[in-house]
């Protein structure tokens, strides 16, 4: 007997809007939240733009002590988890804590605080030997990526399997995929699943500078993230977090929860090709799509919307277009496919969860979010990228894909609530 997995709650911290309503308003308006970096002084860096969150932890209900010991990315996850729990109408005290799991992704974890404190203990990089007396007492929390899932598990009272997943830029999709599997396998009935990252710090900006992955359109940040557009020149770094409440379908129905959609299938593969490079053909991403579709028992021709990885690098958008065509065949040309990174940037490990949250909202509202800034077609990217304006559409099955450093390729299929398995 197959256990089906429902999504019953969504919580989001994203650039341009905190909380699901503000986020959805941004996406459907096609507004961009990219701007010049304010979190540190970016003078001297090649790319000086980012999509930052105007985040007030107190306004999100996080108390001072919690804020003091939690990195920014953990705060994003806590705020998103609180919103998702409220949205799902969960009475946490009434749940069996051993059946409640947490699965959260992050690509770079506590690097922002690690870097901040590094400057203090090293005399701003003057010495290899470091002075421990200048270190923050909470530094071990930044050091251990486990902190992310641990902090959220404490917040929601989970005692079941609690896991931080870190597969670079597919972390968000994978964390939700593994949460889905935990419920499907019967290891949990509920899972707080999602991802968070706050990578806008000098070291991360510098390392993407070094490989020319990020956009140099510093004089026009609002139009810098332009996935699939012929004039794209790299991604715009972002930050944020999103959490979904995943719930065994029977569990959700028994408590009268609103089922937003179901997770139908998930798959991930390595391309075994290059840590940062992608093949022309997209065979491995296509394999992930095919397996996720098979898992969901959905035919490629039944996909109504593809939420793209669409980072806005030359190679990614080409690779991904090839992969989707390989899997969906001629149906790919008739399927809207958009990248919300055009609006909220690329928040590394977090973005896969933010994108899945966008897919859930798209299914609930029957609206496909657009690709902002898309103006000039690229002959190598010849699908329908939903230029600039949101589009009404009845969505039964939605595909979201991700691609990350390490060669990882992931796909998740969402199904409309109540569609028979």
């Amino acid at each position, binding site marked *: 007997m*197959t256990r089906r997995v429902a999504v019953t709650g969504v919580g989001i911290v994203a650039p341009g809007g905190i909380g699901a309503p503000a986020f959805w308003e941004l996406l459907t308006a096609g507004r961009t939240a990219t701007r010049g970096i304010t979190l540190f002084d970016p003078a*001297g860096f*090649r790319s000086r733009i980012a999509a930052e969150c105007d985040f007030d932890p107190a306004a999100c209900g996080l108390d001072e002590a919690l804020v003091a010991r939690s990195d920014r990315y953990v705060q994003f996850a806590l705020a998103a988890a609180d919103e998702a729990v409220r949205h799902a109408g969960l009475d946490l005290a009434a749940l069996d804590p051993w059946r409640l799991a*947490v699965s959260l992704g992050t*690509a*770079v*974890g506590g*690097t922002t605080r690690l870097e901040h404190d590094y*400057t203090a203990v*090293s005399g*701003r*990089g*003057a010495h*290899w*030997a*470091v002075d*421990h007396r200048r*270190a*923050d*007492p909470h*530094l*071990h929390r930044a*050091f*251990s*990526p*486990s902190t992310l899932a641990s902090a959220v598990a404490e917040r929601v009272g989970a*005692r*079941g*399997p*609690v*896991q*931080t*997943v*870190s*597969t670079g830029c597919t972390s968000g999709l994978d964390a939700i995929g*593994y949460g889905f*599997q935990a419920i*499907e*396998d019967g290891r949990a009935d509920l899972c707080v699943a999602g991802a968070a990252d706050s990578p806008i710090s*000098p*070291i991360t*900006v*510098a*390392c993407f*500078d*070094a490989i020319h992955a990020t956009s140099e359109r510093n004089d026009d940040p609002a139009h810098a993230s332009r996935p699939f557009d012929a004039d794209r020149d790299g991604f715009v770094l972002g930050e944020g977090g999103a959490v979904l409440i995943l719930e065994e379908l029977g569990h959700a129905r028994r408590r009268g929860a609103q089922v937003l959609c179901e997770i139908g*299938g*998930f798959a*991930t593969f*390595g391309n*075994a090709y290059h*840590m940062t490079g992608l093949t022309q053909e997209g065979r*491995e991403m296509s*394999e992930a799509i095919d*397996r*996720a579709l098979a*898992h969901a028992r959905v035919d490629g021709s039944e996909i109504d919307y593809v939420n793209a990885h669409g980072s806005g690098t030359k190679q990614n958008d080409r690779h991904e277009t090839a992969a989707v065509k390989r899997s969906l065949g001629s149906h790919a040309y008739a399927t809207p496919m958009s990248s919300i990174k055009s609006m909220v940037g690329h928040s590394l490990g977090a973005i896969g969860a933010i994108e899945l949250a966008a897919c859930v909202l798209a299914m609930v509202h029957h609206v496909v979010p657009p690709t902002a800034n898309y103006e000039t077609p690229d002959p190598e990217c010849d699908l329908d990228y939903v230029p600039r304006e949101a589009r009404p559409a009845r969505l039964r099955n939605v595909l979201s894909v991700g691609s990350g*450093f*390490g*060669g990882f390729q992931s796909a998740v299929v969402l199904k409309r609530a109540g569609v028979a398995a």
Partner: protein
Amino acid sequence: MTAILPGRRAVLTGIGVIAPNGVGADDFWKATREGRSVLGPVTREGCEQLPLKVAGQVSGFDAEEAVEGRYLVQTDRFTHYAMAAADLALEDARLDREGQPPFGIGVVTAAGSGGGEFGQRELQQLWGQGPQFVGPYQSIAWFYAASTGQISIRGGFKGPCAVVASDEAGGLDALAHAVRTVRRGTDTVVVGAAEAPLAPYSVVCQLGYPELSLATDPERAYLPFSPKASGFVPAEGGAMFVVEDESCARQRGARIRAELAGHAATFTGPSAWAASRAGLAHAIRGALEEARCAPDEIDVVFADALGLPEADRAEVLALADALGEHAEFVPVTAPKAGTGRAYCGAPMIDTAAAVLAMEQSLIPPTPNVTEICHDLDLVTGHARAAELRTALVLSRGLMGSNAALVLRRPY
């Protein structure tokens, strides 16, 4: 991928160990069996003035010999260990990579500290000299996914890839993830963890752990279950394994070294050691249930052995809660008292030791520990001969995870 397929079982067919007490399974087992302690002073450059004085360092590992230059330059020490351990495991499994389907081999690693040494070097470049001095490999060397990615690329493994970025218990979770990946239809998974948390800044980051032992005498720094227990000693290294679908392994005539029979994981909060009793007991019961194993079938326990009185007591009570009367009779050991705790690598090293112990019918001792102040049959001094069919490996993490793994000798 699919849901879990009935009838598929995961077995372990290859072991690769890079541990403080031995590089390669043979050297590792010899030191482990003899109960040799290799805890010693931290000798890494830049650590001289830090209050952590004792650790378990890997010695006798030549990265340049083990890993090709082009992979060496773009990776941190933790990935060097992982790549080398993966090579040893694959060699041990005698896997013919040519004959495998294109998506047939996956890679799963656990990582609790990432590429700290590489990261510190690049931080120094950035802050000491400027953004343009940060090298192109920082983006792929520091992050937790580096080892899975590099093992996949280096080996041409296109199967499902995963990274559990966790505290110690995440090592066992990674093994369980590999088992589920096999049961979902992938024939082979290269899985494990290796850590390198001894760069100066990484050490500074660990000083906030209240459980860390700052003792200066290597023979007294890490004494689990003893009245002098005063915390744990960190270590580097780990182990990688080849895990396969049983029928595939039998078909190709592979030497099956153990069955990965059951696993469960729970969470009881960071440094909440008294509460870990219930969490660990719950995990043990879950692992036994998945393995369809009665408590009295457990022939040996490889303990988490954190080395703090409260945590040690919780572990002993958890065993009593989960195993009942049998807890009085089952031998318990903690070889990691002689190597230190290599974070996610620690339960991987214990898993390797458990498999070797079953094969050799020999329980390795707990080094350095002579006095025991808890009610358990801790194997100390010399290795103990015993018929071992089933082993239980336990792990708890500093961020609150608890995990249990049941291993069975192949029939």
